[in-house]
C-alpha cells in the first residue's frame, strides 16, 4: 500500500512538472528525456535551396589588425596553426595562444 502511494505521488509530481512547464518545447526540438542535456532532434524543414552566387556564409579573410574603433573590417578566424606552421590568411592583432589540443 505504501509502495502504491509512493508511485502515485511520483506520477502526480511528474504530471505537475509537465503542466508547469520546463523541459523541451515541441516547437523547437524534441527532448528525448533520457538524461543527457543534448538529447534532442530538431524540427524538420531544413532546405538548402536558394543559395545564390551572392549568398556567402564563410568567414572573412581580414587584412586588418584590430585595434578597436568603428569602421575597421571584421576580424578573421584564428590563424596560428597548432603545428606552429604559421598559416597566413587571417592577419590578426589579437594575441594568439599556444597550448594544448582542442578546437579552433
Amino acid at each position, binding site marked *: 500500500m505504501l509502495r502504491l502511494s509512493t508511485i502515485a505521488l*511520483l506520477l*502526480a*509530481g511528474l504530471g*505537475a*512538472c509537465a503542466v*508547469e512547464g520546463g*523541459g*523541451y518545447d515541441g516547437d*523547437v*526540438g*524534441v*527532448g528525448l528525456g533520457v*538524461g*543527457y*542535456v*543534448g*538529447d*534532442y532532434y*530538431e*524540427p*524538420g*524543414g*531544413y*532546405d*538548402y535551396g*536558394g*543559395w*545564390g552566387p*551572392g*549568398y*556567402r*556564409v*564563410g*568567414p*572573412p*579573410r*581580414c*587584412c586588418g589588425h584590430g585595434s578597436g574603433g568603428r569602421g575597421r*573590417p*571584421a*576580424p*578573421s*578566424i*584564428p590563424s*596560428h*596553426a*597548432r*603545428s606552429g606552421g604559421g*598559416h*597566413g*590568411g587571417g592577419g*590578426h592583432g*589579437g594575441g*594568439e*595562444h599556444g*597550448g*594544448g*589540443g582542442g*578546437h*579552433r
Partner: protein
Amino acid sequence: MNKYLAGTLCTLALLSTGIVTGAPAAGIELPPLSEPASSETHPGKVIWADLVTPDLGKAKDFYGGLFGWSFQQAEGDKNFAVALLDGRPVAGLLQRPLAADRKHQTAWLTFIAVRDVAAAERSVKANGGKVLSAPKDYPMRGRQAVFADPDGAVFAVLASSSGDPPDMLADPGEWIWSSVLVKNPDREAGFYRALFGYEVFDQDSDDTSRHVILASDDYARAGLHSLPDGSAHRHPHWLNFVRVEDVGAAVAKAVKLGGKILVDPRLDRQGGQLAVVADPSGAPVGLMEWTDTEDESGASGAMTPGTPQVPGASPPATGTPPAGSP
C-alpha cells in the same frame, strides 16, 4: 491541483529520481575540453558539437571515413561515442531513436563557450529565447544547457571546467566555422550580442540577404545570415563547418559514404570552396577549405569590408554584462 501543491509534488518527484536542475548529471562521462586544463576562457567561441543520430554505426562510418575521426565509447552510456582526431576529442555522437513522422530530423548541436551558464540562461529568457534543457553539470566537462534563440534556432552553452581550447587555426578534420541561418537577422544579432558580448560586423552582400559576422576576442566566431529568399518556411538553425583540404573531393567521398549534397561546392568569402552535405541520417554538415593564401579572384575579405554595427539591436534587456563577461 493548485500551483503550490503541483510545484511541491514536482520537486519531490525530481528529488526521488535524482533529476534536479544543477545537480551533477549521472551517466555519461565526457572528456575534458582542454587537457591539460587551462585558465583560458573565450566566451562566444564555438567549442564543441554533438550529433544526435538514430544509427551510431552509420554515423561512425560516415564521419570516420570523411574526416578521419576515430571513436571512443563514453563512460556511462554505450550509445554515446566521442569522436577523436589525432587523439583530441572533437565531437560527441549520441544514438537515440527517431520517430518516423518526418517532423523532425537529425542535426548537430552547437556548443558555445560561456563563463556563467546561469547568467546565460537569464539573458536568453530576457531577450526572447527559450530554455530547452536546464543547466546540468557533467564531471570533467563542466556545466551546459540548451537554448533556442528568438527565431527558434537551437544551440547550447558550455562553461568548461577545464578552460576553453586555445584560439588556433583548425586542422583538417576539425570544426573551423559556424553559421546561424535565421529569419530576423537584426533581432537575432541583438540576441547573440547580449548573450555572448559579440561585436557585430555588417558584411556587404551581393544578394538581398543580410550577412553579419559575430566576433569576440577580436576573432570572427560565427556568421549570422538571413535565410535565402523564398525560404520563409525553413527552420532557422546553426550549421557547423569542418575544415577539409579539398571540398570537391570531400563531397565526392561524402556521397560515396551514403551522404547527400545539400549545397554544391562554391567559392565563398574565405577565398576557398565550401559545400554542405547531409550525413546518412540527414544531419547537415558544412565542408570548408581554408588555404594559406588569399584567393586572387577577389572572393576574400577584401571585397567584404565590414563596419562594426549592432543592427537593430537593443541593449541587453537585463542591463547586465553578457553571460561571457567576467
